[in-house]
């Protein structure tokens, strides 16, 4: 298990840990916008940059890297708040604020970094999407890939194919829930759900009447796991009740 020095503090982490994990373990505050535990790091937002020096390098030679996807090594020295690291984060936030001037999360982060208003040209069509790619990555991760990035560069956006209701979407809401700025909107009720312009039928727990999952998602899970679709329609409350009954029976037996 490699030992690193982060902001002067020694910290030991697993060999397969990321530099970000090491920094956080050492108590350093490294902000991120496109990182999410369980998803492969992406390195797009550049907020998690740190200064890093390998044991074999000259003491004063540091390289700026993104900590989310950088491997750890024995004897690494890391500085998470050097002047150039902070300056880079500030410009990144300043740029994001120009893109998303009305987005509370970005306003908040910018303020924390001393930026009240963007220095750059304000986006004439403000958006909440920061293009962190979390939605498409989580969608890929669960094996659906209903949405993707479209176009490139400044014109890049997240959309379903042909900007029409995505045929592959199962209405699981993972994209909306992972979105850090609340850009992806949806409506859901005990009967139906709508996201990306696609309508879904909800499966209701036959005992409690609660709507727990879309039919499409239950079928997707059933197909992937081999468990019957009916398993997924039970609400948590139903499952707890069943569990309680099982325990009751066990008590009786005793």
């Amino acid at each position, binding site marked *: 298990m490699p030992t690193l020095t982060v902001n002067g503090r020694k910290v030991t982490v697993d060999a397969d840990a990321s530099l970000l994990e090491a920094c956080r373990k050492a108590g350093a505050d490294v902000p991120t916008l496109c990182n999410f535990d369980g998803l492969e790091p992406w390195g797009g937002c550049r907020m998690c940059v740190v200064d890093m020096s390998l044991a074999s390098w000259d003491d004063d030679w540091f390289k700026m890297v993104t900590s989310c996807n950088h491997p750890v090594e024995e004897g690494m020295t890391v500085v998470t708040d050097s002047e150039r690291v902070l300056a880079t984060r500030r410009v990144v936030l300043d*740029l994001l604020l120009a893109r998303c001037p009305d987005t509370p999360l970005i306003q908040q982060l910018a303020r924390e970094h001393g930026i009240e208003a963007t220095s750059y040209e304000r986006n004439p069509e403000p958006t909440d999407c920061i293009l962190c790619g979390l939605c498409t990555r989580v969608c890929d991760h669960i094996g659906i890939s209903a949405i993707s990035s479209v*176009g490139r*560069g400044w014109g*890049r956006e997240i959309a379903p194919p042909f900007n029409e209701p995505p045929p592959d979407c199962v209405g699981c809401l993972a994209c909306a829930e992972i979105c850090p700025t609340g850009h992806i909107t949806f409506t859901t009720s005990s009967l139906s759900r709508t996201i990306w312009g696609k309508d879904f039928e909800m499966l209701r727990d036959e005992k409690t009447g609660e709507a727990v999952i879309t039919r499409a998602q239950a079928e997707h899970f059933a197909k992937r796991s081999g468990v019957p679709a009916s398993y997924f329609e039970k609400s948590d409350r139903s499952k707890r009740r069943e569990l309680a009954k099982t325990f009751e029976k066990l008590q009786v037996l005793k």
Partner: protein
Amino acid sequence: MRIESFDQFAAFQAEATVRDESRSRKILVCCGTGCLANGAKAVAEAFAHEIAERGLDTELKLGVTSTGCHGFCERGPLVVIQPEAILYTKVKPRRVPDIVEKTVIGGEVINGLLYKDPSSKQRIETYDEIPFYANQVRVAMRNIGRIDPTDLMDAVAHGAYAGLAKALSGMSPDEVLDEVEVSGQRGRGGAGFSTARKWRSCKAAAGDRRFVLCNGDEGDPGAFKDRSIMEGDPHSVLEGMAIGAYALGAHEGFIYVRDEYPLAVVNLQLAIAEARKAGLLGENIMGSGFDFDVKISRGGGAFVCGESSALMRSIAGKTGEPRAKYVHSTAKGLFDLPTVLNNVETWAGIGAIIANGGAWFASMGTEKSKGTKAFSLVGKVKNTGLIELPMGTSLRHIIYDIGGGILKDRPFKAVQTGGPSGGCVPEELLDLPVDYEKLTEAGSMMGSGGMIVMDDRTCMVDVARYFLAFLTEESCGKCVPCREGLKQMLAIYDALVEGRGREGDIEKIETLAACMQLGSLCELGKSAPNPVLSTLKYFRSEYQAHIEAKACPAGICRALTAFEITEDCDGCHACTKVCPTDAISGEKKKLHVIDHDACISCGACLDICPTESIRTLPKVELAQREVV
């Protein structure tokens, strides 16, 4: 015939040489993209027709060969008559019977078709006497223009696959690696990483399956050496890759060719098919037991795919988004397997390095940059085209001796190297010897060898804006500094060229540049500020003029520039014909006038005026005049 042993290969070489030497005369017609555009195909067909009609092919043992690019594209179509190496430029099909009659049969030189040296105004008879060619040393481009790229036998007669035969028959993979190390060759794609070190690092990676890739995504605007190599001598690329694969123990290769190079794709496909048929690619090459095959992957039109990780994603059928390279592609590259990616020119040099020895290559060039380097010399220079020179040649020699100086003998201003990742080198650095380190020190880079010469009629703010606009369109959009930073920087430049520049803009540009250099994910974003910073470094006063005086000193930025006609005008009407908005009026042989309200400041009149009697002035001066 399939070659199944080294002896058979030697016999094939001998046969090819005999065929080549038996031709007492050869007519080489350049059929590169440039010459084809100028009608070279019709010229080649006219020769074939004329010769068949006169029955000269049997009588004189004459051969007509359609070759790859001779590099002198501006003068195309080019025709070379061997063995004298007489070079005819701008040949039209109707001149063909004349050429056959007088030169091919009669041995007489047709003066009017010869190249005229722009400086001495002298007609020059042969290829080797022309300064453009005389000063070159060709390694990667050794056979371009000399062979028919679609004829394997012709290539073999000129040495193709001799390096591969030498490696497979008498060298161990490690010996091949050692020889490449001795050559000191560094990557010809831009960054200049040592070829041998890259190969060794891949070879050390775990796993049995590995790939060799060829980067033919020559995206730098202003560079076309890789296109010419792929079109004109595709076998040199295949040979290099096969040698590399042998050294690394790889059996699969991909050539990634950009979509904009259709002829390169065709010629590579033909070359691969021919090489496979002859047993020079595929299973058991030359009976050595070594297997290697190559596939072509056509790019979809994205500059960022020249970046290694984006290129590999693109070959895998995905969008060209780079990834962090904290784990090198030599360990985890294409399909997450160990991969060596080299540029076209790098691969093309390998065969020659093995055949002639690494020491031969290392004897050319400078201490740290060995060998020769191909450049595309273009822009406002008299002789534009493709050249290959030893590393360390001075910019002055390249631009003035080979390039023949600046068009219309205007003053030189800067030379842009390295494409959008490079920078502009000013006049005071003209004596700079060109190698990787020297260009980087000057704030530019080698890149893929584009050299774009700029004269005083080039605005450096406009040039920087041009590259920003290019990159804004080409950024993949994955990381914030590149995607958003380029967009904002371009907005500042738009303001500068339109006269809306404000104090503090330069500082804003510098802050953004620092963030992009440090914070961007890949080299596209990291190097994007180079054109900006180099023009700021050497031409800061031009920026200040745009901001403070609202004037473009070069008279290029339209919103700031007005045109007027001076007393020297002889009323030739040339300008009235080219003016797109009919803003110029005046009777023939009398002084003309420009209507400033109708003029869109395009500069067409200035470019065409034979008496140089059109001048530019800042628009603000015009306004001041009206006030007075």
